[in-house]
Every structure is written in structure tokens, then in C-alpha cells.
């Protein structure tokens, strides 16, 4: 007689594992060229508990792969290694400095009868190189934003200082990587812009000019509303990294206290100042506090002679946030902060409610908010503008999408296709689930649309996308 206990039955279920970070290391092959000194090449290794010989072996494999690939293409370095169990991504951001990320393939664990160990099946086709290659580059950009290039630490304090900085930065940063929810948006690394009418846009610009005029210490300014960018004085690439930091790390940590109830502990002591809702997100939490420290995070941005170091002041009133950047050689004092608070606080509060009002009016005229009719992702390589109606909201921890992960991967596949040839293209595919996916690439712009019209044919799908382009992108020409 066969009896299956509930425990056994539950044990028979398949277990699905998402991709995860196995290793992340940084090495420089020139630091330990002699045999027996291989450990010196390793500047950072995650997880640090890994046994020394294994670290050396893994670094050795990467070196061998890079060297081997040079036999065939001396100018283009290896970017990834695929194996049954994992994928490794290589990136050489500065000469001889290699960053390697090892991601385990997603897998399914199938239990076996008779107490045999479970069978593991690796899903080797699930990880997209473009997505995770972009994640590695993002890691470096983020390090560089807060620490400057590796060479800076090397000049300032040699290998030891660099190792300290790497440890300090990546120990925390790696915990914020959510590899299972990375997708096409990571490849683009775009910036979401806030749509605004001309009048309000001019108001913001004049606000920025006025503040920069009165507080001449301010070198660059960036203005955001609702986690979307409106104005930036920084170079595009720096803004892209800063934007990523603000929207996935800083802003989510300071959830809106304005929305909290009056007596909520979340609401900061406005200290009788009811004229405005302005507050510092970096630097002092409360200006009135005599103990307040006036220390701001430092960031590094590109300048004519390499890079420059800046204090990053982020000041927020309701949904409007302004970033002010000041040369790091200048000390930011209490007086300066008070001056800034007094000047910016009331104006920003006013601007925030102006924008909010405008936004509500616009939304009302364009019809009530509802589930977007079209699911699409748009990206413009020229100004890094991105727009997605697929992603609900990107927070620090999770990125929720409203479509099946397989469809997201098909978008990624189409994007890879586009990247191969430098010409305008359109690709329309029908998945096995009968969803249609349309990709259009036209003059540096890419648009991806997912249509859930199972019985539609190619012609009808084409009509739908035309309609979308007419309503959402009426001034952009897409190849038909």
C-alpha cells in the first residue's frame, strides 16, 4: 500500500530559484605578476569569506579568458563568459582594472524519489548579457560618482586606500542590487522627464537662475518633481548616475513626511516655520538643532580637466526636489544653509504646488487616470529620456512590472537585435502566448509595445501601434 504523507507530497514540489549574485570582484593583473603573489591582484572580493585559493583561481580564469579572447580580437575585450551554472561579466573601466560579476543562472530543483539528492536544472537562456553587462557598468559609475575614478584613490593613497574605498562602497552597494528584477530599463539607464507646460518650465528655470545668482557658491543645479527630472545643469552621463542614486536610493529613504499626519513621528519638527515645507535630504536634518552637522555627501563629476569634486545638497519641498552642487574645496557653513533654506524653502514650496496644480489640470483634460491602454517602453539615446507604462514604480528594492517576465525578455532580445545593426528597423513578433511585441528603432529612438490582442493579425497590430504613436509620440517620426 502506498501512502503519501502530506510532508512528502509538499517535498515533491519543484523549487524555482531566481538569478542571484555569486561573486563580485575587482582585480588588477599588474599588481601581482609573479607566481605566489596572485593574491595581490585582488582589490575587492565578494563574498569576502571565500577561501583565498578559490579567489585566486576565479581571478585566474578571468585573466585566461580575457587573454584567450585577444587571440581573435585584440581590440575588443571579452565581455561575458557563459557556463552551464552561471554567467560572468567582465568590464575594464580603467586600464588594467577589471570588474567581474558572476551571476548564477536561474534554476529549478526537482526532487527525486528514494531520498536521492534533487536534480538541478539550470535555465541557461534566461539571463540577458546586455542587461547584466549594464548592471556592472552601473556599479562602476556609482562608485565613481561618490569616489572618483580608481586612479584617484591610487594617486592619493595607493592600493591600500583603493581597497578601503572599494570595500566601504561595494559592501553596501552590492546589497542593493536586485538582480532578479533587472531588465531592459537597466540597459537604457535612462532618465524619466516630467512633462510640463512652457510657462511652468520657465518659472522653474527662472527659479534656478535666481538661486544660482544669489548663492554664487552653487555651481550646478538639478530640479526634479515626483522623481522625474525637469532641469539639470550637469553633463548627461553624470546626471544619469545621480538620477539613479536619487530615485532608487535617496528619495525612497525619505518617504514623504508631508503626507504623514500632523502628529505622526514621521513629520519632522518644522520648528514653528510654517512658511514652507522645505527640508534638507542630505546634510542637517534640522537647522535649528545646535548640534547639527553641516556635512554633505561628496560627488565627482566630469570636468574639462578630468573630474571635479562637489558637495551634494539635496533640498526638497513636497514633491519638488532641488540638487545644488558646490565645489568641495569650499566649506559649507551653517550660515550658508540657513540662507539657502530661507531663500529656497518658500519658493520651492510655491513651485511645488504650482506644478502640482498644472499637472492635475493637464491630467483632467487628457481624461481620467486609468490603466494605460498601451504597454510600452520608450527610450531616446540622445537625451536619455525614457518612459515606461510597463513598470509600475521603480523603488529601491523592487521593480514591479505589469507583464510576464518572458515578455520582458523578448523586449530584451529585440533590443539586442537592434544593437547589432546601425540602421532603422522595425520588428514585430508574436509570442507563443499570443501576445504581440513590437519594437521600432528610428534615429536614436527606440519604442517597444506589448499588445494583448490575441486574435489580431500583423496588419491590425500595425494599426494599433500607429494609433499609439499618434497619441503619445505625435511629433516623432517612426519608420513605418
Amino acid at each position, binding site marked *: 500500500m502506498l501512502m503519501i504523507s502530506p510532508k512528502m507530497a509538499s517535498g515533491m514540489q519543484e523549487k524555482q530559484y531566481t538569478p542571484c549574485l555569486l561573486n563580485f570582484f575587482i582585480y588588477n593583473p599588474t599588481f601581482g605578476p609573479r607566481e605566489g603573489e596572485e593574491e595581490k591582484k585582488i582589490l575587492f572580493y565578494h563574498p569576502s569569506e571565500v577561501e583565498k585559493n578559490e579567489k585566486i583561481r576565479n581571478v585566474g580564469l578571468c585573466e585566461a579568458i580575457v587573454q584567450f579572447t585577444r587571440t*581573435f580580437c585584440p581590440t575588443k575585450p*571579452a565581455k561575458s*563568459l557563459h557556463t552551464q551554472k552561471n554567467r560572468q561579466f567582465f568590464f575594464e573601466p580603467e586600464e588594467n582594472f577589471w570588474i567581474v560579476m558572476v551571476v548564477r543562472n536561474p534554476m529549478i530543483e526537482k526532487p527525486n524519489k528514494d531520498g536521492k539528492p534533487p536534480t538541478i536544472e539550470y535555465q541557461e537562456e534566461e539571463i540577458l548579457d546586455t542587461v547584466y553587462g549594464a548592471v556592472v557598468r552601473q556599479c562602476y559609475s556609482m562608485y565613481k560618482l561618490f569616489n572618483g575614478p580608481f586612479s584617484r584613490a591610487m594617486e592619493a593613497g595607493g592600493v591600500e586606500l583603493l581597497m578601503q574605498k572599494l570595500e566601504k562602497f561595494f559592501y553596501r552597494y552590492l546589497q542593493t542590487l536586485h538582480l532578479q528584477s533587472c531588465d531592459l530599463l537597466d540597459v537604457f539607464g535612462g532618465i524619466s522627464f516630467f512633462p510640463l507646460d512652457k510657462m511652468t518650465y520657465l518659472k522653474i528655470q527662472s527659479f534656478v537662475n535666481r538661486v544660482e545668482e544669489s548663492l554664487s557658491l552653487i555651481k550646478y543645479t538639478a530640479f526634479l518633481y515626483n522623481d522625474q527630472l525637469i532641469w539639470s545643469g550637469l553633463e548627461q552621463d553624470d546626471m544619469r548616475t545621480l538620477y539613479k542614486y536619487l530615485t532608487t536610493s535617496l528619495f525612497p529613504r525619505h518617504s514623504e513626511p508631508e503626507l504623514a499626519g500632523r502628529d505622526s513621528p514621521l513629520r519632522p519638527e518644522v520648528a514653528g516655520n510654517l512658511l514652507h515645507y522645505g527640508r534638507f535630504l542630505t546634510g542637517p536634518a534640522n537647522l535649528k538643532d545646535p548640534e547639527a552637522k553641516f556635512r554633505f555627501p561628496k560627488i565627482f563629476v566630469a570636468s574639462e580637466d578630468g573630474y571635479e569634486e562637489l558637495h551634494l545638497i539635496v533640498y526638497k519641498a513636497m514633491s519638488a526636489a532641488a540638487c545644488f552642487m558646490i565645489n568641495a574645496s569650499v566649506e559649507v557653513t551653517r550660515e550658508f544653509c540657513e540662507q539657502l533654506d530661507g531663500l529656497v524653502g518658500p519658493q520651492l514650496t510655491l513651485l511645488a504646488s504650482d506644478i502640482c496644480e498644472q499637472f492635475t489640470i493637464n491630467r483632467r483634460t487628457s481624461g481620467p487616470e486609468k490603466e494605460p491602454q498601451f504597454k510600452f517602453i520608450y527610450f531616446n539615446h540622445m537625451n536619455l529620456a525614457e518612459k515606461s507604462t510597463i513598470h509600475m514604480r521603480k523603488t529601491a528594492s523592487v521593480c514591479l512590472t505589469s507583464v510576464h517576465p*518572458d515578455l520582458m525578455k523578448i523586449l530584451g532580445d529585440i533590443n539586442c537585435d537592434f544593437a547589432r545593426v546601425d540602421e532603422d528597423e522595425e*520588428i*514585430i*513578433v*508574436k509570442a*507563443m502566448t499570443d501576445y504581440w511585441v513590437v519594437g521600432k528603432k528610428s534615429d536614436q529612438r527606440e519604442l517597444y509595445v506589448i499588445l494583448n490582442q490575441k486574435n489580431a493579425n*500583423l496588419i491590425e497590430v500595425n494599426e494599433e501601434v500607429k494609433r499609439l504613436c499618434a497619441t503619445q509620440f505625435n511629433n516623432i517620426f517612426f519608420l513605418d
Partner: protein
Amino acid sequence: MDGGTQGAAAAAWENGTLAAVDRLQSDRADSPTPGLVEGTEPGAGQRSAMFVHAQSFEDLSTEVEDREAQLGKSEGCDAEEFNVLVGEKPAQEPRNNFSSDNKTKEEDISSEAWRSHKKHIFVLSEAGKPIYTRYGTEEALSSTMGVMMALVSFVEAEKNIIRSIHADGCKVVFLTKSPLVLVGVSKTCQSDKELLRELHYIYYQIVSLLTLTQLNHIFQNKQNYDLRRLLAGSEYLTDNLLFRLERDPSLLLSAVTCLPLASSFRDVVSSGLQAAKAKNLVFSILLAGDRLVTLVRKKDQFLHHIDLHLVFNLVGSSSSFREGEGWTPICLPKFNTAGFFHAHISYLQPGSELCLILVSTDREDFFNMSECKQRFMERLSKRSAFQALKEALKCPSYSVAQVGIPELRHFLYKSKSSGLYTSPEFPTVYQTDGEQERLMRLYQDLHSALHHPTRPLRTFYRCGETENMLALVTSGFELYLCFSPLATKAMAVAAVNKLLKWIRKEEDRLFILTPLTY
């Protein structure tokens, strides 16, 4: 459901046909739609499939189920037998631009010219010994191949398997098929899977010369054996196979194309082969160049398309069969990796494209096979089918203009159940080798996208600057179309229906609808 069949039966009876009701036949609509069931698509065989064919190329990567030959196992090869095969001389009139290859063999491997080849293929033993390289000499590459082997074993030591390395515009794909390791380096934008498929073909090519049993035996005895000693003189087969892989849609589609021939004549040829049977005869294959005229097989024995392509490659690469009757051992690895078959290969007439291949299980069967051929020839000339065949040879292909769709430049249509495909000749826009290879790569891209291992697609449409491509897969067929860049989507959709109708109309001529067995 029954009602439908009965209805069809009644209709057949009413029409007064005496033929038994063939369900398949009654379902063969004149205007096939993409919703057809497998077995009723244009080109589907009416009895049973002629050979085992892969549903898709993934089949290549599944291990060979060792189908033990029930026909008396061929004894292991001895050196003498082997020499017969590898002693073949390469075709004296090499196909197309093939002759330059001898020069590239001596190329300096540190030169830019060597590096810039579009596709390198290496075969090595598990001891890291070079066995084959497409460009340069194996000697010069021994250290490079040593590194390849080191990478493979290093990853293996971690209980893992190396698959591929990717750089911008270059990829390296590894395939370990103990006791061999195959490495492909490609600068084309071919997918990993396509490259892997090609490596599998190369592997089977080598197995077809030696059998896997012997290959294993050699390396078990002597790990660092230099296999080139056994394969010397056969490199041209691999070279030629690689050339075919880049140009021949049949290898991409895992299918075979036929010589267009009126079905009445084809049936005469088939029954001629069927009649010329012998005890140990397993397959009779009549080829016209790269096209199949017909294939007759022993009942219950199927020929895998890979094996058939290896036979095509053997015949197409060697000119010596033109000199008389050839008798050569060949292992058909998808049938049985352990033993040899013996193939009687001869052209029907000197200078003719028609080549007859009779595959026997008995190595002493040469004279029996020769007699089978005579019997077949007699029958063929008696029924004037030979003349018809020769006529058909004059137009082995057709122009896409015959289909009557103005914007359609080219297409590939594969009937899944029969494993046969049809395709017109290349139009004038694709006359150069470079253009033809580019078109083939576009087809490869479509094929890879449709047959993605985890995210397969039903339809793929690409509109680019030089052409518009449409590909679709249904349970019955695969269709790949190439349009001029001016074609619209509406045209493309209309073209599919029109083309299917045309193929249905022509299927008697383009496909083998009634395959025979002995």
C-alpha cells in the same frame, strides 16, 4: 469529428472514386491556411514520413539514442576499410570559390588576415591535441588549442561546463563531445545556438568517418593520439560541410529539398528503386546534385536528416565517384554511432548529375548492390522515366516570379511532417556570394528567433533598410519570406496565403508525396 470524416467519405463515394478514403487527402485544402494541422500542410507526405527529421535544430543537441541496428551489427572498422574512405580525392572541380582554401591553410596565425576570418572552427582531442582547423595549420595552432582545452577542463573541474565567450562582434562557442572538443569562433552575428548546431554537424562528420566506438577506443588506448593520422586527406569533407552550412538552407531547416518532377515520373523512379531491392539493402537514394529525387527505405528503418546531409556532403565533395562505382564504408551517426554501413555510390551516366546511393549493411555486398543498380537502370529506361528525369534536370529550380507575388524576392517553405522544403532560386538582387550569404544569415536570424530554446515565437517580422522579412511557424510548416523593402505588412500577410495556395498547387512536383519502402 467523426461526422467530418464520414462526410468526406460520403463525398468521395458520391464522386465515384474507387480509391480508399484517405483522411489526409480529404483534408488537403486547396487554400491552406496557417491554421493547418501537421500532416495536412502542403508538401506533407501522404503515407508516412521518409526519414526521421528533427522538429527543430534542438534535436541536434539531444543525445543520440543508440538505435541498435537490428540488421546485424556491422563489424568494427579495420584500417583497410577506412582507407577506402579517406583515400577519396577532393572534387577536382571544387564547388564555387572553394579552391582558395588550400592557400589559407598555410596562413600565419599571428597575421591580421588569419584573425579576420569570419568563422574559425577548431577540433581538438581532450588531451588538447589539434585535430582540425579551418584556417592555418594545426601545428601552428597547437598552443592556442592547448589554451582552449585548459579553459574547458578548468571550468569542468568546478563541476560546470563552459559554453561560450562573448566580446563585441566576436564569440567563441565550445562543444564538448567526449572524446572530442569543438570550438567555433565567429565574427558574424549568428546566435550561439546556430554556431553550436554547426559544431554538432562537424562532430557527426568526424564520427561518420570513424564511428564513435572506434573514436573512443583510440583515445582510451592512447590519450594523446594524433587523430590527424587517421583523418589525413578527409579535411576537405569538413571544409566543404562548413561551406554548405553557410550557404545551404537545408542544413538550417533540418530538411531536404527535391528535384521538381512530375509525380507520375517520380513514382516510376521510386517504384524502380523499390523493385531493385536486396537482402541487406537499407536505403536507396537518388540525388540530382543537392536535390533529392527520391528515397526508398527498408520498412521500419528511418534515415535521419543529419545522416542524409552527411551522405550529400560525401557525394558532393568527392569527384572520384564519377569515375565508376564507388564502395565506401560510412557511419550514419544518427542511426548508429557504433557501426559502418557500406554505400554503393555511382552516377547513372558519366557527366550526369544523377547519383545513386545504395546503402547496405554488408561489407561484402558490392556486387549485389551493383546488380541492384543494373536492375534499376533497366527498369528506368524501359519506362522512359530516364528521359523525363533528364528533362527535369534542365530546370532543377524555379524562379520566384512563377509564384506571382511582385514584392516577394525569395522564400523557404518547410513541411514539418515530411521534412522536405522548397525554395526558389536566388533572385538577381542576391547574385553575388556575399549577398547570398547575407540572405542566409537573415534566414538564420529568423530561424534562431522562432526556435529560441525558452522563448519560441510564432511570427517574426522585420522591416529593415534592405529588405523586409517575415517568418512564421505553425504546427504544420515553417515559412520564411523575403520581400523588397517597399513591401508593406498588408502585402506580406496577403503573400503568405497566396504562396501557400501556390505551393499546394505545385506540391506534386515540389515534394515527394508518396514515399515508398521495400
